[in-house]
């Protein structure tokens, strides 16, 4: 058996001083950060009125509620709930499509390779950021004030809030596009619009289509909750049944939402693969 030779540590020490004698600041950084994070966490628990007693009684309540939820049962309201689910899917589809249509021209203005000047891009970007900073539920409340209760307010809320997200994502996709094809169009005498149509769009559209599909999927979730504030869809039913403590109906509605989201998820993933190819879908 061969004897393993001891490595010469002093030589290694000389070679990699950083690894053997890390400065105290670097060694302490991680524990200090963890301690600080924990300190804020504990402060948060105290400040937000967490108490073990409340937690335990709440959990036992929750256990009781869960027991009440089984088995899921919806009585005689199936047609009503199916209609609400259809409403939710419609809201998601329409809202996302409208947002994409509105966002496309704006994203061109926000892309660095289309509009080189900061003068237009900067305010547009900040404008899109502000829209994104406001949650979809808040937009729903605002639109309810404008067009009244109902799914239409939901469509408009999803439209506005996705407009902000799409504007940013699309402009990023456009910025990531290859410059060479645009130059090719220009070299053969195309106008600025030709450059966008034949140089940029073929590269960008598949990416955009993938993002739109993904958003339709995630908006099915959003659309299922905006009903909670009165903007139509299945969330309205869900919130009502929770308020009147009809737990069996609640669990059925939650299951319905889960199934619908899973179905949309499945379809949109298939479509995304078909549009961009397997490799491009991260």
């Amino acid at each position: 058996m061969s004897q393993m030779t001891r490595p010469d540590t002093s030589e290694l020490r000389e070679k990699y001083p950083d690894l053997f004698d890390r400065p105290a600041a670097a060694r302490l950084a991680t524990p200090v950060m963890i301690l600080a994070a924990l300190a804020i966490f504990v402060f948060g628990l105290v400040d937000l009125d967490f108490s073990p007693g409340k937690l335990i009684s709440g959990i036992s309540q929750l256990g009781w509620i869960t027991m009440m939820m089984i088995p899921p049962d919806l009585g005689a309201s199936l047609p009503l709930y199916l209609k609400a689910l259809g409403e939710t899917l419609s809201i998601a589809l329409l809202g996302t499509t409208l947002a994409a249509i509105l966002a496309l021209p704006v994203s061109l203005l926000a892309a660095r390779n289309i509009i080189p000047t900061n003068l237009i891009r900067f305010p547009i970007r900040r404008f899109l950021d502000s829209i994104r900073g406001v949650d979809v539920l808040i937009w729903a409340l605002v639109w309810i004030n404008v067009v009244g209760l109902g799914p239409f307010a939901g469509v408009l809320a999803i439209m506005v809030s996705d407009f902000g997200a799409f504007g940013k994502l699309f402009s990023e996709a456009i910025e990531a596009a290859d410059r060479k094809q645009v130059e090719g169009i220009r070299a053969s005498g195309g106008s600025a619009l030709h450059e966008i149509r034949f140089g940029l769009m073929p590269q960008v559209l598949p990416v955009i289509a993938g993002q739109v599909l993904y958003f339709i999927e995630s908006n099915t979730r959003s659309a299922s909750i905006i009903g909670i504030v009165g903007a139509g869809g299945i969330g309205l039913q869900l919130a009502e049944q929770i308020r009147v403590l009809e737990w069996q109906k609640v669990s059925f509605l939650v299951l319905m939402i889960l199934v619908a989201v899973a179905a949309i998820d499945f379809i949109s993933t298939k479509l995304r693969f078909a549009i961009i190819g397997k490799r491009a879908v991260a």
Partner: protein
Amino acid sequence: MASGVSILPAPQLAVLNEAYRKAVARKRLKVTIAAAVFCAALLIAVFGAEVNLRTLFTYFGNFVSYFDRILTLDSGARVWTDPLEWFWGWKKWLRMLGETLLISYVGTLAGATAAFALNFFAAQNTSPGPFLCFAIRRLLEFARTVPGIVFALIFVIAFGLGPMAGVLAIAIHTAGALGKLFAEIVENADMKPVEGIRSTGASWLSCMRFAILPQVSAGYISYALLRFEINVREASVMGFVGAGGIGQELVVAIRKFYYSDVSAILVTIIITVFIIDITTGWLRGRLFGKEARG
């Protein structure tokens, strides 16, 4: 100037043109069919969502004037002419805003910790058993598919009104979302260090600690910070269902038509979200920068 492009003889060209036309025609047909299906779906959706263009046109002025109204003080002046009057409730709002941030912080940290504890079981390459992997995955899926606000609605009934329900709702949703992302990072990790450590006779736990964790911790932190950003937005509406934070103030202001308050609270929320976005972006850049250098 001599042309560098050579033209093929006509018969050869005709064959190529024909093939090209066929390929394009097939593609066009596909696109047309897809567009038709999509338009049909849209049309159905228009009826499903009770879209009424007349309502929109009649009330669209309302939307514009709504912003006009929320930017006007009770005295009729524009809000920015009198910031003190506009932000008259800034002490209360800042406190609520602090509560919102704390809700999202505590919720994110608790959720990330749960996700951290579960993700090694949910990742295919490190899970001790396929059944456990499947079960944990379904659990995480459930936690992330049910919207956070639905959890909040239920928790408000179980735990009572207040921020605790909001924190727990955010924590559960975060655990589901981060658990999946964390597990994906683990699945992409290099398995050679695990084999190396395994070969020294180490337990499963040591394998995770010394082989996987050093590879994935930066990704974890990055995703957790990103999630914190999202959760701040989410926490800002938890108050809508009584689960604490600034949403409570906002919903009261919107429902009772306290116009200038609406804009003041919205501005506060937007600025906070900006600051959080920039800070976490900077932090992520620093952490990743460090990782790359180390």
